[in-house]
C-alpha cells in the first residue's frame, strides 16, 4: 500500500504548484482584463448581409 503515500505526495505537490501558480497569476495582473472577452462575443460583425433577428421579440 506504499503507493498510497506516493499518490498523496504527488497530488499535494501538484495542488501546491497550482496554488502557487494561481497566487502568482493574481499578483502579476494576469486577470486585468477579465471583462472584454465576455462582452466581445455578444457582437457579431456580420458583413454585407443585415442581421435579421438580432433583437428578436419573443
Amino acid at each position, binding site marked *: *500500500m506504499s*503507493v*498510497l503515500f*506516493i*499518490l498523496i505526495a*504527488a*497530488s499535494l505537490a*501538484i495542488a501546491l504548484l*497550482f496554488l502557487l*501558480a494561481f497566487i502568482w*497569476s493574481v499578483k*502579476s*495582473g*494576469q*486577470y*486585468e*482584463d*477579465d*471583462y472584454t*472577452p*465576455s*462582452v*466581445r*462575443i*455578444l457582437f*457579431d*460583425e*456580420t*458583413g*454585407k*448581409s443585415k442581421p*435579421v*433577428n438580432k433583437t*428578436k421579440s*419573443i
Partner: protein
Amino acid sequence: MIVEQFKYDNRWVRNFAFASFIWGFVGMLVGLIIALQLIFPQLNFVEWTTFGRLRPLHTNAVIFAFVGNGLFMGIYYSLQRLLKTRMWSDKLSAIHFWGWQLIIVSAAITLPLGITAGKEYAELEWPIDIAITLIWVVFGINMFATILVRRERHLYVAIWFYIATWITVAMLHIVNSLEIPVTLFKSYSLYAGVQDALVQWWYGHNAVAFFLTTPYLGMMYYFLPKAAGRPVYSYRLSIIHFWALIFLYIWAGPHHLLYTALPDWAQSLGTVFSIMLIAPSWGGMINGLLTLRGAWDKVREDPILKFMVVAVTAYGMATFEGPMLSIKSVNAISHYTDWTIAHVHIGALGWNGFLTFGVLYWLIPRLYKTNLFSIKLANTHFWLGTLGILFYAVPLYWAGFTQSFMWKQFTPEGILKYPNFLETVNAIKPMYMLRAVGGLLYLTGTTVGIYNLFKTAAQGTFQAEEDAEAPALEKEYTPHSNEGWHRVIERRPVQFLIASLIMVAIGGAVELIPTFLIESNVPSIASVKPYTPLELQGRDIYIREGCYNCHSQMIRPFRSETERYGEYSKAGEFVYDHPFQFGSKRTGPDLQREGGKYPDTWHYNHMLEPSSMSPGSIMPSYPHIIDHDLDLSSMEAKIRAMQTLGVPYPKGYAQQARADVDKQATQIQDNLAKGGVKVSKNKEIIALIAYLQRLGTDIKGAPKAAAVK
C-alpha cells in the same frame, strides 16, 4: 488594418442540428420501450429487441447520436463566430458529419444483433471503434486548423472547453477500446477483471465529464450570454472553473467501483476527487445562472431562456448529487439501484436535453432567417419536458431507496426479511410505471419541439453561407508588458492542447499505472483457473445478450449481500475475465456465486421462460438460445486470443479445445436428460449453462482464511 470579407459555413451546423433532434427522438423512443419492458416483459418480442440489447442502443443513441450531434452543432456554430473565421475545410466538415452518422447507423445495426464488446457505454465493436477514432481525428484537424487560421487572437472560454473535450475524449476512447480482435465482430478487452473495470469506469465517468459536460459547458458560455443578450457573469470565474474542472474530473472514475474488489486506495482517491468536484461544478452553474442577473424578467417570456435555466439548474442538481453518491456510506445504499438511473437522467434529460433544445430554438430561426414558428408550442414543450423529468426522476429515487432498504432488511432473528429477490422487484413496479409516464411526457415534448423546428425551417429560407467581416490577424504580436501567463497560452492553441493533455493524463496515469504494475493490488488465488472452452463460449453468449445490464457479478462485503449471494467477491477471481462483467445495476440478482445454486434443468427452464421458475419475473425469455446451434467456428481463434492476453491455456490447446467442448457438453446434455429435458449438446443453451454453473465456484469450498487478504 485590412478588413477581410468571408463567409461562415452554416450548412454543417444545420445538418448536425437536424441529426441531433432526429436521433434524439429515436434514442428517447428506445428508452421508453425499455422502460415499458421492465413492466411488461412480453414487450421484449424477439431476440433482437430484448432489454439487454436495446438498453445499450438507447444509451449509445442518446449519448453519441443526440448529444454528440448536438455538441458538434454548437461547436461548428460558435467556433466560427468566436474566431471570426470559416471552418477550415468544408471537405473535412462533410467527412466529419457523414462519418459520424455512418457510425451511428452501424451502432443501430450491430447492437440489436448482439455484436458488443460488453463494456458499458463502450459497447461498439473494434471496427466501429477504429471508425470513431478516425472521425474524431478529422474533427480535431478541422477544429485546430480553424483555431490556427483565426482572426481573433484571444481564445474565448468556450473554446478551451472544446479543446479539452477533443483531447480527453480521444485519450479515453483509445485507452478503453484497446482489444484483441478475434473475428470481424468479436474482440476481447486487453485488460482483465479489476483492471478492466478501473479502465472502463475511468473512461465511463470521463465520458460523462468530457462528452456530456465540458462541450456543453462551452456551449453554455456561448449560447446563454447570446440568448440573454448580456455577458457571462464572471469571466474570471470561468477561467478558474475550467482549470479546476478538467483537473479534478479525471480522478473521479473509481467512485463507480466503491465497495467492489478494486483496491481501497483507488476507491478513496475516487471519492476524494468526486467530492472536490462540487466546487468547480457549482462554480460553473452559478456563473451560468448569475449571467441572467437583472434579466430574469426575460426568462418569464422567453422559452429559450427557460430551457437554459432549467438545464443549468439540472446540471447543478446532478453535480451536487454526484459527489454525495461518491461517499461510501451513501453509495452503499444507492449502488446497483434505480437511484443511479434517476441521477443520470437529471443530467441527460435536464442538462443535455434542455440545453440542446434551448440552443436549437435559438439557432434554427437564425439559420433560416425567420422567427420561431410558435412560442406557444415551445412553452408547451418546456412544460411537458419539465414534468417529464420530474415524473421520471422522483419515482426512481423512491424505487432506489425502497429496493435498497428491502435488500438490506433483516428480521429480529437475523435472517433476510426479503430473501426472494423478486419481492423487491414487485415492490417497485408501480414506480417503474410512473417512470415510463415521465419518459412518455418528455418524448411527447420532444415531438412537439421537432414539429416546431421543422415548421420554423419551412417558413424561412436557409442561409448556407453567411457574410461576415473582420480584420486580419496581425502577424507580429507584441504582448503587453505585465501580461499574465494565462493570456499568453490563450494565444497558443497547440501548446494549450499539450498543457490540457498533460493535466488530464496525470490523473489517469497515477491511478492506472500502479494498479497494473503492483501485483499486491490483485492478489492471485491459486484455485482460480481459466474458463473451459465451453464456458468461454457461454460467457460470450452472456456478453452478447447484455446480461450485465441487469445482473451484477460483484458481491460487496456487506452482511446483507453475503447472506443473500454468498462469499464476497475477490479481485483475484476475475483475472481471466476479458472483459470484466461486474455490472452496475441489479434489476435482477447478482450472479457472481450462481454456479451450483440450481440444477442444470432449472437454468434450461428459466432461460426458456423465466416466470416458470420465478413467478412474476420481469426477465425476457430466451427461446433463441435454446434453438440456436453453438457457433464454434472461431473457437481456435478465441483460445489463441486469450493466450495472447496471458490466460494460461497449455501450448497448442487451441487444437484440443473442440474435443473438450464436446466432452463437457455431453455431460451437461446427460444432466439435462436425467432431469427430463431432451436437448442436443450443440445448442447455445449448453454453453450458457456451463458458464453459469462455473460462476464463482473457483473459491467455493476453499478455506476461508486463504480468501481473506
